[in-house]
């Protein structure tokens, strides 16, 4: 492989990694703080893409569509939390897996009934439709570069929010000392709903960003949801830092696996990586709780 190709493929890996991070950050937060496995996280990704595509068709602007869709997905997520998921926090993982599995069936059918069975169109915003030369002689799609930047921006923002703000501190405390935080007078219920909404917003945002490059269709969230689970398991469940490291690792490994390995092996590469990591570190790379 030439030098140029290395650069481009690394960027591709980063772009996938950033996408995975947006998905897995919410998953891992919800898991770390509320101890909830949410399989329906992929449905929020799908809803994000569909809503943004609809708003884009109505308003003609990708950016306005995102501005409208992000809070809407956040709202849907919070509604989901308040109506159903809240009741599952003190259940075992099994009940959570089942209920959220059922939610996937529900959302897929709901989307199909609302938007029809055909894939939905979402355009790349005009200003980002070309390619940019990242290095002399190496063109790269501007939109994908935007994804890398926007995703990294969200990652940094999240890091600062959790590390530097009061609310972030409470969230961190909630992850490790749930009862204590409650005893200190923090409204735990509201906090949980907020955290869930935040995760939903990030998943929805990932869906919106993916909409113009991928096919917007029912079930589109499931492959990335499974990958996101691989990410949080590798990273260590509950750890945002771990999720970021693992997302980039998985993104790059998947990208290079696809071009360097035979197809039968490359489709299994990520899972082999995960089994390998868990073999040596059963709690993932960055265990959240001691």
């Amino acid at each position: 492989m030439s030098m140029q190709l290395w650069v481009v493929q690394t960027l591709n890996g980063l772009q996938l990694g950033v996408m995975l991070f947006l998905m897995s950050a919410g998953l891992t937060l919800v898991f770390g703080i509320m101890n909830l496995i949410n399989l329906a996280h992929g449905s929020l990704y799908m809803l994000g893409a569909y809503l943004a595509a609809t708003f884009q068709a109505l308003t003609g602007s990708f950016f306005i569509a995102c501005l409208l869709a992000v809070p809407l997905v956040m709202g849907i997520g919070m509604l989901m939390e308040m109506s159903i998921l809240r009741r599952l926090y003190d259940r075992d993982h099994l009940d959570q897996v089942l209920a959220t599995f059922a939610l996937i069936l529900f959302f897929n059918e709901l989307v199909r009934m609302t938007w029809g069975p055909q894939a939905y169109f979402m355009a790349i915003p005009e200003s980002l439709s070309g390619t940019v030369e990242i290095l002399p002689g190496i063109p790269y799609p501007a939109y994908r570069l935007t994804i890398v930047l926007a995703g990294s921006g969200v990652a940094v923002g999240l890091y600062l929010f959790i590390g530097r703000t009061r609310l972030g501190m409470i969230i961190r405390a909630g992850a490790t000392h749930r009862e204590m935080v409650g005893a200190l007078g923090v409204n735990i219920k509201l906090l949980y709903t907020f955290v869930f909404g935040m995760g939903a917003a990030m998943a929805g945002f990932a869906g919106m960003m993916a909409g113009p490059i991928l096919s917007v269709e029912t079930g589109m969230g499931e492959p990335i949801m499974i990958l996101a689970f691989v990410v949080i398991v590798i990273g260590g469940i509950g750890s945002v830092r771990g999720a970021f490291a693992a997302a980039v690792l998985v993104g790059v490994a998947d990208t290079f696996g696809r071009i360097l390995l035979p197809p039968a092996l490359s489709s299994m590469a990520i899972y082999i990586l995960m089994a390998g990591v868990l073999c040596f570190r059963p709690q993932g790379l960055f265990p959240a709780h001691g």
Partner: protein
Amino acid sequence: MRKGILGWVLAVCLSFAVSATAADEIKIGYMATMSGPAASLGIDILDGFKLGMAHKGGKLGGLPVELIMGDDQLKPGIGVQVANRFIEKEKVDFVTGIVFSNVMMAVAKPITDAGIFLISANAGPSPLAGARCLPDLFTVSWQNDQTHEAMGKYLQDEGVKRLYLMAPNYQAGKDGLAGVKRYFKGEIVAEVYTKINQPDYAAELAQLRAAKPDGVFVFYPGGMGINFVKQYAQSGLKEEIPLYTTAFTIAQMVLPAMGDAALGLLNSSFWGPDLDTPVNRKFVADFRKEYGRLPSLFAAQGYDAALLIDSAIAAVGGDLSDKEALRKALRKADFASVRGDFKFNRNHFPIQDFYIRKVIKNSEGVLTTKIIGTAFEDHADAYHSECDMQW
């Protein structure tokens, strides 16, 4: 286990509820993938089929039709279950639909073994066209490889020198590329197989760009096709290296989701909405009127499936008991197909023309295709000689 008894009681009650069969109607089981992301093909075929029925006065061969639906969920196991419902419970006279090859491979034998005629409105896997051809299976669409062969022939005729091939890593993908290579004799730069339902092709596209081929042929149906075509255009490759594909990637129902990324792409098909036959003009116009969208090739296949059944039942005067006569009537294919000439090969797969189409915007600004050339006339599939059916 008590649920088992309840289920049994329920089941018996149900069987009484739905077992009344009038002697003077035909029962047709329609099996297709009607749920999940791949549902739009099954729905288009069904709409085409219904339009065909409507054009025959809501009847087929003069008999009223009871259409019984079955969703195979794109799982062969579920397909077999649906087939058994059609055979054992509904006791249908015909089964039609069947979108995907894997479902077809699972249900073809049980259905035809039960003495039921199976009219495939889409899937045409190679084993059933060759050594394992079945006397009661009629495929009104195509044999899988034919459409790819047409593009292979076109690329050969056009003098493309270095071709890059891509497909998902499954049987249909390999068959598709094999079909191209059967007629394209230039250099194959690379033959890349990607993971099934892979959403993102950035890594593969970077490799492709570095290989600098003269042309790229891909087989990516459905959602994979939408992803690939969009990303191909976004990476700027569309202006550098021409992309060739088939109607499976460029089907009418996915064009809106691709948008301008698809504009100008060449693809092969046995049919196009602009194909100039009287039947096709009426079909396309009425389909638009009825459903408010342009038909895809899948809808055209559904329409022809209805017409084929109609012609056969009419030929035997509505007497469904004489299977031999009915089979003969089906073999004649005495109906006015949307594609003009239509005849069955001895393996019950069509011998037909194949065209090269280009994606354009019509006068209303809607993306559609326009036929720009003919790749094959009266093209037979590559497997019919392995079929030992004689008639």
